[in-house]
């Protein structure tokens, strides 16, 4: 058996999505910008896909939802265009974000800092979320934008977007949310919250990779990132990726139809897996279940280093993820693990399991069995569970890892 439990990284494309995309590679391959029938024949399908996305998110017809190549592009677009429009071309100089954003927000913010922008990186609480009053306390007259993720890719914790949106509205500051881990996983009603920009990505909800979108409230002015043929109402140039737009429309429709039912089913499996894993001694899960996306578990297993655990799971044909420093290219501990600060060891022992609507009960059973087997093997090797104590004077010296990495 092989089990894929890394659905926060990417998801399988739903076969119904693949089927919906098929004709646009071979039969309806025209460029929508063309005047002839080959081009215009695609228009009804594009309109349908746009409708599917607007409906799924309850967006108003006055809003713009612009298809992009991915959420990284959407995030960069917001940050860089706000910089151009309000900071270079205005009197603002400040952006607020969080310590736990996706690299596409954090790296873009670091680049903006190099351009002279002041960026505040807000800390998270022990639940891994930013509290609204923290956001409020950092907003000044010079703040151009607040960018706070809707849900965390690492922990699944859902941020208080509605409250933060109200604060931004009251203060007259633009509000962007990276909605990648929320759209298609939990209800997102864009008329219920005040948010100016929302990024999303189709491959996180069983759509294809290489297509995302940016929601722009009430057609907010936001200068284009890509110039060219002025597609998408002059907001984003580039030949419309018809098969992928159709695929994203279908994927978001499937994800949000009977969503409560789908969420309940995923949640039940997730809770069963989580309960079983927490039976192991010296383990803890980050964040309350009530305020977490229904598919995510971030579990710390004392004495078992994350990459080692991933190795054993991989040998058992189970795909998961770790924020462990040892598994990263630069040996940097995962910023989210460090930011939560719940436990020194979390930065090295965190395993993320993320389910999807395709995860089966049999897969959960198998994962529980293999997970426990791996923990038993690695704890047998682990110095954390050794019984014979060091010779006097043979105890470990000071930690050789800098404070900023090891907490």
């Amino acid at each position, binding site marked *: 058996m092989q089990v894929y439990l890394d659905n926060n990284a990417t998801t399988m494309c739903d076969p119904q999505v693949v089927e919906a995309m098929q004709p646009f590679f071979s039969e309806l391959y025209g460029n929508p910008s063309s005047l002839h029938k080959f081009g215009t024949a695609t228009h009804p399908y594009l309109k349908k896909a746009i409708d599917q996305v607007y409906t799924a998110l309850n967006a108003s017809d006055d809003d713009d939802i612009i298809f992009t190549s991915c959420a990284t592009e959407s995030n960069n677009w917001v940050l860089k265009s706000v910089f151009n429009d309000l900071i270079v071309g205005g009197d603002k100089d400040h952006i607020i974000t969080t310590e736990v954003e996706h690299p596409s927000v954090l790296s873009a913010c670091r680049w903006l800092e190099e351009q002279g922008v002041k960026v505040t990186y807000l800390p998270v609480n022990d639940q891994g979320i930013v509290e609204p009053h923290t956001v409020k306390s950092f907003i000044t007259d010079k703040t151009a934008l607040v960018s706070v993720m809707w849900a965390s890719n690492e922990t699944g914790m859902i941020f208080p977007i509605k409250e933060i949106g109200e604060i931004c509205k009251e203060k007259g500051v633009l509000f962007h949310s990276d909605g990648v881990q929320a759209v298609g996983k939990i209800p997102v009603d864009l008329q219920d919250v005040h948010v100016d920009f929302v990024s999303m990505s189709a491959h996180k909800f069983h759509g294809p990779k290489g297509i995302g979108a940016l929601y722009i409230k009430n057609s907010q002015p936001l200068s284009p990132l890509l110039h060219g043929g002025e597609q998408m109402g002059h907001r984003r140039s580039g030949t419309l990726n018809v098969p992928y737009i159709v695929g994203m429309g279908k994927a978001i429709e499937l994800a949000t139809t009977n969503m409560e039912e789908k969420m309940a089913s995923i949640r039940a499996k997730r809770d069963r897996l989580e309960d079983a894993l927490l039976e192991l001694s010296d383990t803890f899960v980050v964040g309350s279940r009530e305020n977490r996306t229904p598919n995510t578990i971030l579990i710390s297993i004392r004495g078992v280093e994350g990459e080692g655990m991933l190795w054993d799971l991989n040998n058992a044909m189970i795909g998961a993820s770790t924020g462990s420093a040892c598994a990263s290219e630069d040996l940097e501990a995962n910023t989210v693990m460090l930011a939560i600060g719940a436990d020194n060891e979390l930065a090295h022992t965190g395993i993320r399991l993320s389910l999807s609507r395709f995860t089966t009960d049999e897969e959960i059973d198998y994962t529980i069995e293999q997970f426990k087997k791996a923990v038993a093997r690695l704890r047998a090797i682990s110095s954390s569970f050794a019984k014979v104590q060091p010779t006097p004077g043979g105890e*470990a010296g000071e930690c050789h890892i800098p404070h900023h990495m090891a907490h």
Partner: protein
Amino acid sequence: MAKDDLLGASLWDAYSNKVTTLMNNPQHQGEITPEEAEAHGNKLIVADFGAESCGDAVRLYWEVDPKTDVIVNSKFKSFGCGTAIASSDVMTELCIGKKVQEAVKITNIDVEKALRDDPDTPAVPPQKMHCSVMAYDVIKKAASLYLGVDEESFEEDIIVCECARVSLGTIQEVIKLNDLKTVEEITDYTKAGGFCKSCIKPGGHEDREYYLVDILAQTRKEMDEEKMKAAADAAAAGQEKFEDMTLVQQIKAVDAIIDENVRQFLVMDGGDMEIIDIKKNDDYIDIYIRYLGACNGCASSATGTLYAIESTLKEKLSPNIRVLPI
């Protein structure tokens, strides 16, 4: 950056088969109890290095025959990733059968080489070298406990890069001999800084006592000082070429020649000159001057006078000199 760099390789693809095999089935993981060692009439040494909160921790067990100082058995326990477990396993393998005094000579380089499938292919990707460094550190600790000496006594050199075991002396020497100007060049010449990168500058994976950026800056400073001293000594001995002088020395030399050969003629006509700057310009050395008093605006200042100044300086100091009035 090139075609092969476009897709980053998977971390695990860079592990040797030996690393994979030992991670899956370490041969020497386990514990030696005081009772076991005592039953064999041997001494038990147990040493720790690292901590779970650091991300790496290893506990090394040695059963040593006190009559011969030979490590008759060795085990390990490791909190760590695949390469940490495999490195610990090889480390214990290398210790068994050696005298403590020999075992302490085992370095991380030996551990990493023992993990290779073939001698020319590294067993682990660069950033994973620090796992084998832990093995070296814990061996030193165990040996210091057995022999009752300080761990530092095993280290003859100051090691700057633990991964490649490059000493401070080697790095300083290579910088000076090859006139190295960047950290990348140091890495190319010595491999220091090419692995976990902690020794390059503060803020890396581990805190270090010495960093390549500081060593480079300090060594370059020493080189400059040595160069200036050599120039001053040569100048004092009257042997230095004008081209090799420092800027200050060049200005002084030019001033001295002007004073001796030119200035009195300018002053006689109610004029004078001063040196503004000296710049190297490809093969030429350009001396910028300004005329003062009656010389300023005099027709001869751009012809005869200028020729006299330039030819004197060419003859006395260097044929590459050009004099440029501003």
